[in-house]
Structures are given as structure tokens and as C-alpha cells.
């Protein structure tokens, strides 16, 4: 199953474009005023009905009635059909309760702007409660999509055709199949042909002629589309012919084998993705905790602040969700960094050399930040919109796809990591940070203003936490508890990797991530996590200073 929904959207858009042009030409002929029928459609079925009449049947509650109406509408030979079906999908066909008719409608400042479904001429407004969008359910959606796909088969755009064809795969409605065959002859685009063939072969499975069936099976055995597997399985259940049985089993075995490989690939990807999340969550801590030796229990809350910043930015720029994240990143960095510096100046400053006490103080801070968020944003979760370029998945084949948001986040995490690395290695600040973390007195003696460096370092660590928040907002709740759910894992990662060693953090994050995902299938989510924790505990026994031990204030104690 691919991303049906987005596919449909794309298809619909194209169709609208193509169809609107006709609509304009034909408008003059179609200026019949909207008339309403009191008779129940049931009796009317026989007589030819105007589009408006057919639409009015959609006022019925029963979905069977609605389906009948939709099919009727689809049969109409009118350029309005496609736009109206789309409107139905988009919930832009509204049921006007005042005169019990259906019309196009857009909600604007608490009122419905009603348009005539045929002429698209405005026919006045009613208040928001007097009209309701026509309710459709999954069954109707499938019907509509198939109808639309049917139309789309003859679109000029090859992608649209391909998607349409795929939508129709596994559909055994005869006239759909005939439509496919028809298209097949004139089709030249390879991708479309492939989809159509799949669809036709699946249909061929239920033909009466054994050889056609065997051929179909043979060709299908190279196809990973889930529908294929389903129909092969179905066939296997029904067939009596031994030769066919054998062929089917062979084909299925072959398909399963391939699916197997892709699933392992999946698991690895999941592991990497989880790893990248851990990395993002932990990397800020690797600075504040690893380099400065501050056990920052408020780290999670700094991530949370980043997430909320994303939310606020999206609220401020309501109609630019595509690129608002790019603004959110620096914003989140600043917000968290400033808060971080604030914490450093007013709390942690007094506690250097007493790492275990920074833990207590920052724990207090985390409580305050959490409650502050509850008071300001309410304890409810906040919606963070995922931009289109981040939603959906990169379809490598029907059984193996990489979800975009995770893909981006993996790269993002690595980018942040490398950025930080270069910052510490190359820049003057980085040098000073390392100097101070090694030996503050000497550093001071060398004229480094360790006060300032500390503040900046902590700010940096916190800022990165903020950035992580932006990324995590794409994956999980944006709520007051966001931080808590990551703080412990972050500490595990940093400690496991070896305090004060960024590479350690990287390895640890991905190592734990993948380990977790490998365990999950056999042990289940919870047990996997427990096992990983136990592993960490035992590992620390073996190597009391983590994967890559490193000297530094935290390591000293």
C-alpha cells in the first residue's frame, strides 16, 4: 500500500485543472437555476434526473443511498462530475438544512458561502450551523476514488495515469477492467503499463483458462505489490488444480523471500531512526553534562521549549507551514540557549565542582519549566503541522519505503552532530570550551574568561536541545511531559558512550537504537527496552567510564 491519500490529492488536483477548462466553456449552456425536489429519489430512480436531483439524494442518511447517488452521478456525461466528486471528497458539498438541498459551500467567518453545484454561481449564505458537509465513509471514499481513477486513466499526465492504474489494482469490477484494457492498448508510458499489467494479471488469476492463469502467476511472482500477494493467496485457497497450486506456492515463496530481505532493511532503518532521535536528545547533554560536568535534569525541558517554539512559530506564520520549520530552528536555538544561559548564570554558576548538586538544582528548574509551560500553553498537547515535504514516505518498492520525516531527521541529527564537532574542534570558542573543561584554573591563568565560556557552553548545549525539540515535535507529542520522556534515555546514551566524548555519544545513540529495534520483534517493545537498560548496567560494570573514556571535569569527580 503506498500513500493512497496523497496520491488521490495529486490526482484530484490535476483533474480539477484539466476539467475546469471545459467547465468554463460549457457554463453558458448549463445555467439552469437550482431547483429542489420534494419527491424521494427512490421513486425517481427510473426517470432521468438533473445533476442537482442526484446530488440531493446525498441528503439521505443511509450510506447505501449515498453510494447509489454517487454511482449515478459518475454515470452522468457531464464535465461537472469530476469537480463534484472531488468536492464531495473535500467535504465541500454541503447539506443545506434550511431547504434540504445540496450545494457547494465554503466556510468563511462562521458562515457558509453556498454556490450552485452546477454553475458555481453564489446562491447566498447560511449560518455555520444551518448547513453541514455531506458525510461520507471509507466505503464511499473507495468508490469515489475508483471512479476518479477511472477518469484519471485518460489524463494527459503519465504520473496521474500510473497512480490511477495502481488505485485500480485488485479491483475486479468488469467495466473498470475493460477500461484498463482499453488504456493498455494506447498507453506508452512504461510505469503506467506496469501498473495496468499488474491489475490485468491479477484479474487473469480468476480466468477460466489454466494457461492464462499460470502465465499470470508467473509474471506476478516478480511483483511485490501487496494486492498481488493477497490475490495469489486467495487463489491458493480456491484452486483445485495441482499444477496451479505448485506454481502459486512457488510464486508466493519467491515473493515472501524478497519481502523478508526488505523487512530486515526496514528494521535497520528503524534502528537508525531511533538512534538519530536518541542522538538529537542526547547531544546537547553531551555538552552540558559531558564537557561541563553539569548533570542537567532540565535538559528534557529545554528540548520541550524547542518543540513549543516550533508551535509558536507556526502559529505566528499560519500560512507558511512549508518553510516555518526553517525559522523555527534558529528561533528554538535562541529560546533554549537564552533559558540555558539564564539557568547557568543564576543557578549552576554556584555549583561548579559539585556535579551531583547541579542534579538537584536543575531538577527543581525542570519542575518550574514544566509547570510554566502548563500555565502558559495549558496542559493540552499542541498541534505541530508536518510540512508536506516531510510527510509521506519514499516508496522504494511496494513493501519497502522510508518515511520522509524520519529520513530527514536522521540526516538532520548527523548534520547537527558534525556541526557541533567542527564548532568544538575549529572555532576559538570550541578551543576555550575544551580548555576550561580540562582544567579551569590553568585556563583562567591563560586569560580565558571561564565565566563567559561556561555561560556560552551551557547556552550552546541548551540551544542544541532546542533544535532537537524542533525535530522531535515532528515525531511526538508537543506537551509539558515531552522532556521527561527523553531525559533518562539521553543520560543513558551519554554515559554509555563515555562522558565528554561526542563520538561516544554518536556510537552509543545509534548502537542502542539499532539494538533496541533488533530486539523489539522478538521481545516486544517493553522487554526490549528493559534488556537494553540491563545491558547498559552490565556494560558500565565492565567499562566504568563508558565506551570511549575521556578525561574531563565530569570524569574526574
Amino acid at each position: 500500500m503506498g500513500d493512497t491519500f496523497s496520491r488521490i490529492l495529486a490526482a484530484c488536483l490535476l483533474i480539477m485543472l484539466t476539467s475546469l477548462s471545459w467547465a468554463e466553456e460549457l457554463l453558458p449552456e448549463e445555467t439552469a437555476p437550482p431547483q429542489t425536489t420534494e419527491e424521494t429519489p427512490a421513486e425517481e430512480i427510473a426517470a432521468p434526473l438533473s445533476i442537482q436531483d442526484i446530488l440531493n439524494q446525498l441528503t439521505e442518511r443511509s450510506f447505501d443511498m449515498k453510494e447509489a447517488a454517487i454511482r449515478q452521478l459518475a454515470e452522468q456525461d457531464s464535465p461537472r462530475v469530476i469537480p463534484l466528486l472531488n468536492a464531495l471528497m473535500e467535504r465541500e458539498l454541503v447539506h443545506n438544512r434550511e431547504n434540504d438541498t445540496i450545494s457547494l459551500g465554503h466556510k468563511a467567518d462562521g458562515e457558509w458561502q453556498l454556490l450552485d453545484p452546477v454553475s458555481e454561481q453564489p446562491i447566498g449564505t447560511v449560518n455555520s450551523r444551518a448547513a453541514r458537509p455531506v458525510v461520507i465513509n471509507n466505503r464511499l471514499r473507495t468508490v469515489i476514488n475508483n471512479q476518479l481513477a477511472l477518469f484519471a486513466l485518460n489524463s494527459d499526465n503519465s504520473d496521474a495515469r500510473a497512480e490511477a492504474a495502481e488505485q485500480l489494482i485488485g479491483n475486479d469490477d468488469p467495466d473498470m477492467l475493460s477500461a484498463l484494457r482499453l488504456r493498455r492498448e494506447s498507453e506508452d508510458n512504461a510505469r503506467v503499463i506496469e501498473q495496468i499489467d499488474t491489475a490485468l494479471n491479477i484479474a487473469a488469476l480468476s480466468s477460466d483458462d489454466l494457461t492464462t492463469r499460470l502465465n499470470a502467476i508467473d509474471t506476478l511472482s516478480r511483483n511485490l505489490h501487496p494486492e498481488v500477494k493477497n490475490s495469489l493467496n486467495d487463489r491458493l485457497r480456491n484452486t483445485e488444480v495441482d499444477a496451479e497450486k505448485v506454481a502459486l506456492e512457488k510464486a508466493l515463496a519467491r515473493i515472501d523471500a524478497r519481502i523478508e530481505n526488505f523487512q530486515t532493511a526496514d528494521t535497520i532503518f528503524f534502528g537508525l531512526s531511533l538512534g538519530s532521535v536518541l542522538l538529537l536528545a542526547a547531544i546537547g547533554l553531551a555538552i552540558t553534562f559531558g564537557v561541563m560536568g553539569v548533570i542537567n535534569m532540565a535538559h528534557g525541558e529545554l528540548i520541550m521549549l524547542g518543540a513549543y517554539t516550533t508551535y509558536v512559530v507556526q502559529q505566528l506564520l499560519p500560512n507558511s507551514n512549508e518553510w516555518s520549520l526553517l525559522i523555527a530552528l534558529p528561533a528554538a536555538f535562541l529560546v533554549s540557549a537564552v533559558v540555558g544561559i539564564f539557568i547557568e548564570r543564576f543557578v549552576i554558576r554556584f555549583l561548579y565542582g559539585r556535579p551531583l548538586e547541579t542534579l538537584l538544582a536543575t531538577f527543581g528548574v525542570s519542575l518550574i519549566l514544566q509547570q510554566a509551560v502548563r500555565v502558559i500553553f495549558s496542559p493540552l498537547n499542541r498541534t505541530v503541522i508536518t510540512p508536506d515535504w516531510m510527510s509521506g514516505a519514499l516508496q522504494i518498492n511496494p513493501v519497502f519505503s522510508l518515511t520522509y520525516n524520519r529520513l530527514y531527521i536522521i540526516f538532520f541529527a548527523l548534520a547537527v552532530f558534525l556541526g557541533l564537532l567542527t564548532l568544538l574542534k575549529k572555532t576559538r570558542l570550541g578551543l576555550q570550551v575544551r580548555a576550561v573543561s580540562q582544567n579551569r584554573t590553568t585556563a583562567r591563568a591563560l586569560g580565558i574568561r571561564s565565566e563567559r565560556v561556561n555561560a556560552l557552553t551551557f547556552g550552546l548545549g541548551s540551544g542544541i536541545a532546542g533544535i532537537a525539540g524542533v525535530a522531535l515535535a515532528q515525531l511526538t507529542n508537543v506537551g509539558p511531559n515531552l522532556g521527561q520522556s527523553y531525559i533518562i534515555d539521553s543520560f543513558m546514551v551519554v554515559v554509555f558512550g563515555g562522558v565528554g566524548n561526542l563520538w561516544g555519544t554518536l556510537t552509543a545513540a545509534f548502537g542502542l537504537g539499532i539494538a533496541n529495534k533488533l530486539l523489539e520483534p522478538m521481545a516486544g517493545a517493553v522487554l526490549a527496552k528493559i534488556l537494553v537498560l540491563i545491558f547498559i548496567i552490565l556494560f558500565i560494570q565492565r567499562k566504568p567510564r563508558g565506551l570511549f573514556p575521556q578525561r574531563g571535569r565530569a570524569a574526574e569527580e
Partner: protein
Amino acid sequence: MSFSKSMKKLAAGVVASSAIVYSGAVMAADTIKVGVLHSLSGTMAISESTLKDTVLMMIEEQNKKGGVMGKKLEPVVVDPASNWPLFAEKTRELITKEGVDVIFGCWTSVSRKSVLPVVEELNGLLFYPVQYEGEESSKNVFYTGAAPNQQAIPAVDYLLNDLGVKRFVLAGTDYVYPRTTNKILEAYLKAKGIPEKDIMINYTPFGHSDWQSIVSDVKSFGSQGKKTAVVSTINGDANVPFYKELGNQGISAEDIPVVAFSVGEEELSGIDTAPLVGHLAAWNYFQSVYNDANEAFIDQWHGFTGDKKRVTNDPMEATYIGFNMWVKAVEKAKSTDTDKVADAMIGIQTPNLTGGMAVMNENHHLSKPVLIGEIQDDGQFAVVWETDGLVKGDAWSDFLPGSKDLISDWTAPIKCGNYNTKTKSCGGAAAE
């Protein structure tokens, strides 16, 4: 007072003594105190703080109408901070120290379980507004949320009959409500002839955030030829990442519909619902239900919170019903005394927000309609199916071996929360 002294000497019997504590506490009061026991901090604040506001709104409304029996209602809000032992402690505080006459509160099962012994001991009155696993009926508790047979069973029926689903994934958070519900559903599905191998059960920890593997498992489980659906009892926080993952892995409602029992308007308000259109939820109430009572309620809510975007949800309706029923019962009993009110409660009818009447049954559970809604892109649900009449809440599930013979009936002559119809005896401690 000599009476109470002698009583004290006589009865170490707790009920008695605390009844005195109780009456003694309220004697002075010229207002009626209403306890509000919902977490305002900690993990559950997300869901519970809304209900706190709801109760406060109802009280304000009632006071505008002149209170109850001429007395003003006085809310007493405490914060059990999502900490279960604290729930018990705060209940004790509310009843003995504050001397409240009724408590509206709790969300999670564990919080209710922790409060239960205390209200029974001190003979308090608790209204519990959340759908739950059933298998309980206390003299002192009224359950205004859905029992499994008012949510899970109808939903599964809808999947079986209307969508022709043949394979089921029962995915839930690992705690008692999903466990029990899934046990019930499993038994029910088997009874309906669904074979073991077509039922996949999966549990995840609270706040589970990484759903990749599980969703992809569901995906492959669903691509086996038969129509598949997910029945989700996943708890609040974990839903956002779950649905996000669904959307991203391209599981659309047409392919594998997900019907959820813990996802309402409020949970959706934290999600970008565009990719989720068509997924289902089963409740006794949806904000989108069209009738005057509901519209009025919604307006009132927007007015109270001063936020036009705030949504309403099922537990709010349950609170609404519970509160109105309590008011009616008190006026009927002409007293706030627990026992009198508890007796008066049974049989009380108040309008619910879906255009019908809610009835309190002898087993302290409500009769409610069951609605199934599909998620829309505006974060609301569109009702696609509903039961013809009201469904009576069943305290003890008929699909669990332990409880098939148990019923609850708080009217004479049985007066028992777990009456065994086989042995004709009131088993367990709920007897007295």
C-alpha cells in the same frame, strides 16, 4: 453528642464512625461542597484538567440557577498530581477535612482503584466520568463513562458487519483497561468465528513514542488478503506518535481502518488530522453531533474557557450527565446524605448531549447510545453509525469466565455489587 460517643465506643465499625465524621463535618456548612479530584500536574494533567474546568463550569451554571436546595455549591479543587497514592490521600482529605458531599474525579483505572477503598470506608460519593474496563461496581461510585459493552463490542460489530473486517489487530497500552477490553473482545471475536490466527494482540508501555516496528507489523499483518482493522486501546499520550506513524507509513483508513476507544476530540486537537481522515472512534458522544442541547453546551464551554477553539469530548459529556443526575438526585432526596442520594440516583433520567435521555441503572452504570465516528480533516468526528436505542452499561462482562455469572444490583433485595446469579449469593467484600 452522647449518642455519637456511645456509638464510638460501641462500633469500631468504620462505616459508622466515619459517617459521624462526615455528618459532623457538614452540619455547619450552609453551602454544599463539591470535591474536584482531577490531576492538574503530572502526566495525566493533559486529560484531567479539562474535566476540572467542566465541573467548575457546571457548578457556576448551577449556582446561577440558584444552587441546589437553595444552597450554593462550593467547589473544592485539589491536585492529586497524577500520583495514585496521593489520589487516596486527597479523597480522605476532601471527605474528612473539607467535608465535601460529592466528588467528581479520577481518570485512570488505577486512580479509581486507589480511591475506591477510601470512599467505601468513609461512605463518600464518587462520580467517575471515563470509559473503563468494567468489572467493578461500588455502592459509593457512579460510573458515567462507557463500560466495554457500550464502546468496544458495538465498535467491533460495526467492523464485522458494515466493513466486513476479517482480521483484527488489538493494539493497546499495557494496563488494565486495554488488557480487559482486549480479553473481552478476543472472547467475543472467537464467539463470532474469527480464528485465533486472525487476531493479533500487541501491548506497548505508557507514552510509547517509537511506533515504527509495530506499525509496519500491522501493515504486513494487514496485507494477507483479508480485510484488516486495528482496534486501538492506546492511551492518550502515545496516540500522537502512533497516528503520525500511521500517516507516514501510508496506512489510510480505506486500507486498514483504526477504531480507537481512547481517542477523542481532545487527543485529536494535538494532531494534524489530514492524513487520518476516515479512521474511526467509538464513543457515546461527539462534539459534531447536531442538536440544540449540544450546541448550547459547546457555546457555554467556549464562553467559560474564553477559547473558541476548545473542543468538547465524551468524558466531558459523562461529567455533564453525572453532575446533572447528582443535582436531580439531591433535590429528589432532599438531602446530600450519601445513602439517600445513592438510592435516589437509581432511575434518574437526564438529557444527554446526543439528543436522548441518559438513565442511571441499578448497577450504577448508565444507559447510553453508542456512536461511531470517522475522523475528519478538521479534527472532528463525523458520525457514520449509531445504535438504534440505548445500550445498558454492563458492570460485569459476560465474555470473561470470572465474571459471567456476576451482576450488580444496588436495589433491594439484592443490594450487591457483585451478585452471583449461579450461587444466588453476594460474593466478595462489597456486600456490606
